[in-house]
């Protein structure tokens, strides 16, 4: 993430300060706007890992009414006597739909070259 921030030219920062922007404005108007792709990546990765998280959810969410999708799917095959493999696989596909939609929505921001044209060469 720091590596991405480093690709934003320092000249932009200086130029904005001369234009009259304080530290906060430089951060909000320039740095955050130009760092958008990496922020989206970080958001997506952390969302996905929380969504699919199993061990902690299994221990803490004991009430059947409140289980996450991952815990629920796991319970379909947890009992060695009743293993619903087909049902679990179908559930897995359904579970991918939210993530898939999210990706479609954020895909537009995941572009490189956002700073193209700022500085020469």
């Amino acid at each position, binding site marked *: 993430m720091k590596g991405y921030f480093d690709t934003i030219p320092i000249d932009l920062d200086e130029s904005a300060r001369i234009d*009259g922007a304080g530290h906060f404005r430089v951060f909000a108007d320039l740095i955050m706007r130009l760092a958008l792709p990496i922020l989206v990546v970080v958001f997506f990765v952390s969302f996905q890992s929380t969504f699919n998280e199993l061990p902690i959810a299994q221990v803490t969410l004991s009430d059947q009414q409140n289980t996450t999708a991952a815990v629920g799917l796991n319970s379909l095959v947890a009992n060695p006597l009743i293993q619903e493999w087909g049902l679990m696989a179908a559930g897995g596909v359904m579970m991918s739909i939210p993530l898939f939609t999210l990706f479609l929505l954020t895909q537009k921001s995941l572009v490189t070259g956002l*700073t193209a044209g700022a500085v020469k060469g």
Partner: protein
Amino acid sequence: MATVELDNLNKVYENGFHAVQDLSIDVDDGEFLVMVGPSGCGKSTALRMVAGLEDISTGELRIGGRRVNDVDPQGRDIAMVFQSYALYPHMSVADNMAYGLKLRRMPKDQINARVNKAAEMLELTHLLDRKPKQLSGGQRQRVAMGRSIVREPQVFLMDEPLSNLDAKLRVQMRAEISAVVRALNTTTMYVTHDQIEAMTMGDRMAILKAGKLQQLGTPSECYDTPDNIFVAQFVGSPPMNLVTAKVNRAGDGLELEFGGSTLQIPASVVAERPALQQYAGRTVALGVRSEDMEDASLRPGAPGSSIKGTVNLTEALGSEIVVHFTFPGEPVVTEDTKLVAEDHKEGELHIVADKGVRWVASFAPRSRVRMGDDIEIVVDVERVHYFDPETSQAIRA
């Protein structure tokens, strides 16, 4: 519009590097001042100190009479054009230009009026909706200019704004910037390493070397009366020709002896530079501009005003013939000449003279000299420059 006063500015970096030493320049209201020097001479550092992007170690900086040493860049009311343009990539051209005004909470209609006016001036009107990455280099450069113009600041600062453009565009933008700045009549400080830009654009030029000011004056002053060998060699293309010459007494007057030739120093020149008398019997560094020499077969000179040499190379440019010739003599080698040679290395033709000194003269196009000829060259002895070979300073008073 305001004056800018640099009063004994110093910049010492944490690692002890002394980038700018006792720099004192007064820039008048509405003046176009160019700071020029070889790379690493501290000119950009000095400009960044004026902008507020670098701290001032010691000394005082005043803009419009107000001390601004401790004022933030945004409080100095200046605008800067960067070498890299530094446009905001996610904003359109219009937003780029308007950003500084929006931050100052100017009413929208006023912002639009100013942006449109600047766009018209720079012929950017049809590009206002584009993003910087959709523009060519010259257009981006104009947007960077426009961003400065709309602010209507006290002072314009420009840090090598043309060095990223190709040669043809650079000449065109040079004229455009000059015209725009003069139309606005705003105080401008311009940094460049290109002495041609400095000569053509500036009201005055400040020549820097290793953090020290060498000479401050109008371009023609710096060209015609250089204060030292560095200025003589740095300003002008080709650089001033130099040779080590011995000063002898001849009757009432003085004459110069070098490379088997003798030049009479006219009495008027000695009267103007009485210090030359003290150099009798010693050596001086003699400097001659290329245009102060002529082919002797075209315009025979008085006795004691010509030198002999062998032509290495001729370059016919149509309006003149540039003749490179050598003659036996002792070249002037100082720190300055080495530095200038280093700086000119790129893109310049270098033929190492086997022995002696290599000079460049420009002759009238009627001259028929060819490579390998032994020729006689008439020197305009009134316009010869004299320098002390040890101190590098011009010999004047």
